[in-house]
């Protein structure tokens, strides 16, 4: 046979017939895999939750809140009245630390900030996109506890993000606030749990006619 004939007689080996099915299965698996990767790994639930940067001063919420029993509002003074839950001023720290642990190096740092007036540079943990306008006062006054969005900060040695803070996550609550509403008295009691949250939430919802906005302009301006 001439080489050309040989070439023109080229025939795929038999095993090739099995390839299509492999490709089919492999492709399917890949497709599902990709969806999973995006669905799980690329979702705020995974990307955002657990962000725990090291802060310039290792302030322990656990110590100050759980053990010393500071109220959230002692430092985050404006949380009931303003959109921003302010980070305390250096002054606030010095209210106590002008007496307590004055010679700890960190307290020295704080002292220095007070003297120079140069702010302490805290690392931002809970970050919403800049086109989202969240108002702390509204949520606090409506009876949404800190814990609903920030988790058990009172138990955190170092603050980390506990919730995804994604839009779908926000909507969950805006569409069914009864799952989080609680009496004003317990808003700052992070360890408090209602035995019958749903039923109680419903009551509060009715009582204060709480209708969380679901319009775009509720959060976006």
């Amino acid at each position: 046979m001439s080489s050309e004939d040989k070439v023109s007689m080229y025939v795929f080996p038999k095993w090739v017939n099995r390839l299509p099915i492999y490709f089919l299965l492999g492709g399917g698996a890949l497709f599902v895999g990709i969806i999973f990767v995006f669905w799980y790994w690329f979702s705020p639930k995974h990307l955002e939750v657990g962000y725990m940067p090291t802060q310039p001063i290792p302030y322990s919420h656990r110590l100050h809140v759980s053990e010393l029993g500071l109220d959230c509002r002692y430092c985050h003074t404006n949380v009931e009245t303003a959109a921003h839950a302010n980070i305390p001023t250096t002054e606030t720290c010095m209210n106590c630390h002008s007496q307590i642990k004055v010679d700890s190096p960190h307290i020295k740092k704080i002292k220095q900030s007070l003297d120079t007036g140069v702010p302490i540079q805290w690392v931002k943990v809970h970050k919403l996109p800049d086109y989202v306008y969240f108002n702390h006062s509204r949520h606090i006054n409506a009876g949404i506890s800190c814990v609903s969005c920030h988790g058990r900060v009172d138990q955190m040695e170092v603050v980390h993000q506990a919730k995804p803070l994604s839009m779908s996550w926000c909507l969950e609550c805006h569409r069914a606030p009864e799952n989080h509403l609680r009496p004003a008295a317990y808003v700052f009691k992070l360890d408090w749990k209602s035995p019958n949250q749903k039923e109680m939430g419903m009551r509060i919802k009715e009582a204060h006619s709480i209708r969380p906005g679901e319009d775009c302009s509720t959060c976006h301006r």
Partner: protein
Amino acid sequence: MSVMVDDPSVRTPLVLGGHTFASVSDAVCAPVEQKAPKWWVASFAVALSLLALLLAMLSKLVWTGVGVWGLNNPVMWGWDLVGFVFWVGIGHAGTLISAILFLFRQKWRTSINRFAEAMTIFAVMCAGIYIAFHVGRVWVAYYLFPIPNSMAMWVNFRSPLMWDVFAVSTYFTISLLFWYVGLIPDLATLRDRAVTKTRKIWYGIFAMGWRGANRHWQHYERAYLILAALSTPLVLSVHSIVSFDFAVSQLPGWHTTIFPPYFVAGAIFSGFAMVVTLMIIARKLFKLESFMTMHHLETMNKIILATGTMVGYAYAMEFFIAWYSGNPYESFAFVNRAFGPYAWAYWTMISCNVIFPQLFWFKKIRRSIPAMFVISIIVNIGMWFERFVITATSLHRDFLPSSWFYYSPTWVEVCQFIGSFGLFLTFFLLFLKYLPMIAISEVKAIMPEADPHHHGGDHV
């Protein structure tokens, strides 16, 4: 009219030059198997450089912003949407020829449908480019698809643009499948004729191991029939939906019930014109006159004449309704079309689309290659202007005179449009070089010898 119909007693042969089955294969496969002629290399180079131009313009667009186009406040759509509708329109002839003519058992389609389908696919690609890049933030264009997301946001199914997304992508997919299914037996032919191992393997892979078994032919023909049956309403729906982009809005000059039928007619019109243009070139260069016969061309010219007249009728009807409806904004919009700042565009459109095609009433012109070549190009120009007139003139003067403004394109828009031809031609030339541009098996099937009850057909 006797001119329009063939006399059944004397059917014009669809394949000339005493071809046998083998010689059909030889003739059609020749361009694929011989090495590329000089003209091909040359024109491919041109096509590639135009494609580069397109890419350059698109990058500039994305980089700098939609502002590189001449769009302004009242006229938010310009050459972008015009280009989109223009290419989609061209994309219609292919499926139409394959599907509708197939359903009507028009045997003459066989030697041109492959050609036209290819054209369809590449034209729709150009259209897709336009629809994708006309948005202000291409990088979030994925918002257009109903994908579950952590924002819990969904799309708006009431928007004609959303319909477009589905219609155009469906149309592209179906056309591609249709085209590929048609190709399979011919790919097998190429595979079996192949003399080098690479060709064997590549054509072999795409032929999927086709061996012409009758059981295969059975399912194959059924599948082909069904695809044709699906594509026919599809092709009509797609351009109707494209027309909804305008018709569903409330802008005077857009908000018209006549749009769907009139857009479809226009699409067929421009599509056939483009096919004629390309066919004339291809049959000459590849010496395929015996397959793409004068009879084919003439029949297509008749369709161009028919659809051109429909389009003309639509133009007239728009005016009548605008006046008859007694809606001042409506009537102003149309008077403004014909006598406003964009009158030049309007009259170009009228002369190209309504007046010139009428020449096809004369058999001489209908059958004269140069004449039909010129007219087919004129028609395409005219159809581009139709879209421009609809888009720009309606927008630039709407309800409040305070917002009236004039729109003229920038060099970016122009170059991008020229560039889009680069995309089209690049793919088309590749098609001409590597795939059989005529459906071999179908042509064989319509040869007299193919009929088992035909006698003295076998040469052995």
